[in-house]
């Protein structure tokens, strides 16, 4: 049985190394390009290809409560994130 949304068995087996790595010197580090998002002292990582609004939601934050900044410039929520983007979220809620 295959559960919807879970990686398919075929995909899972494709990820397995086709050979055994025995020598420590043969270790390979794979960098997956992601988008990094910082909010206050928290750091999040999301996949590229989604909109800023969706990424903010994915981090469990309210899009209404933050402003996204990339390379020091304010960007809109419909911007689609690219690999390697670094987004800073500025909190807008104040009060006391």
């Amino acid at each position, binding site marked *: 049985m295959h559960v919807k949304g879970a990686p398919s068995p075929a995909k899972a087996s494709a990820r397995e190394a086709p050979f055994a790595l025995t020598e420590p010197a043969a270790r390979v580090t794979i960098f997956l390009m992601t988008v990094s998002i910082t909010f206050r002292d928290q750091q999040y990582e999301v996949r590229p290809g989604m909109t800023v609004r969706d990424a903010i939601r994915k981090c469990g934050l309210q899009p*209404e*409560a933050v*402003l996204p900044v990339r390379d020091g410039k304010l960007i809109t929520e419909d911007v689609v994130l690219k690999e390697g983007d670094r987004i800073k979220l*500025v909190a807008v809620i104040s009060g*006391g």
Partner: protein
Amino acid sequence: MLVAVSGGKDSLALWDVLVALGYQADGLYIKLGIDGGVRYSDQSLEKIEAFIAARPGARLTVVDVPQELGAPIPLAAQLTRRGQGRPCSICGMSRRHIMNRVAHDGGYDVLATGHNLDDEAATLMGNTLSWQVGYLARQHPVLPASDDGLVRKVKPFFRFYERETAAYALVCGIDYVYDECPYAVGATSIYYKGLLNQLEADRPGAKLQFVLSFLRAKEEEGAFAQAASEVTLKRCPKCGQPTANDGECTFCRTWDRVRERLASQTHPQTQMEAR
């Protein structure tokens, strides 16, 4: 015009807009003596000083609470046990008093504050949930001056979302204090803002509609008019500011108590040092 500035995005954005529109807008900063590990008050004043340095002609009045009244706000709250461990009650009361006094004594015809739509919606939500009829009667973006010494108060940003004022400050390169007052953590107003943002996400425009329909109900249907007319103010015999109390106003009573308790704490120590 006098603009109350805290060093935050809303008040600095408001000051910037008023100056750009040609108003003679002078700033008022009330230094509360709050550190909270982030030098909150000092940092706020530094941002304001940087703001005015870039705007020749902008004038600033600073009221230093610890110096002028005898204690920083958090200590005053501790000494009076007001506000259940939070200094916000004494802080809000003192700021309102000082703002009115400086505006009145300085001959300003209007006092402007940077309250935005989210502030108004959160206040309205809080007042509605507990049916604070008196507060609801007085919640308005324009409060007229009164014969008993209250200056005219305006909230020019009351229709702007908090996000919009923050965006304005970022786009215009206004450097403001990002750190929140350390005592704002867990504040009810922030909780209400979170709830209202959830509502706004599902129903865009809900916050604006909430505030505007409340104001319409007051203006067109006279909602809360009776509660508004019930308030009669007298003059505090000590400071001359308007008060609903018989006798001294809450500000004078509270700060007298702070200074008394401070003196009774420091007095034995002074005697010991003299020995």
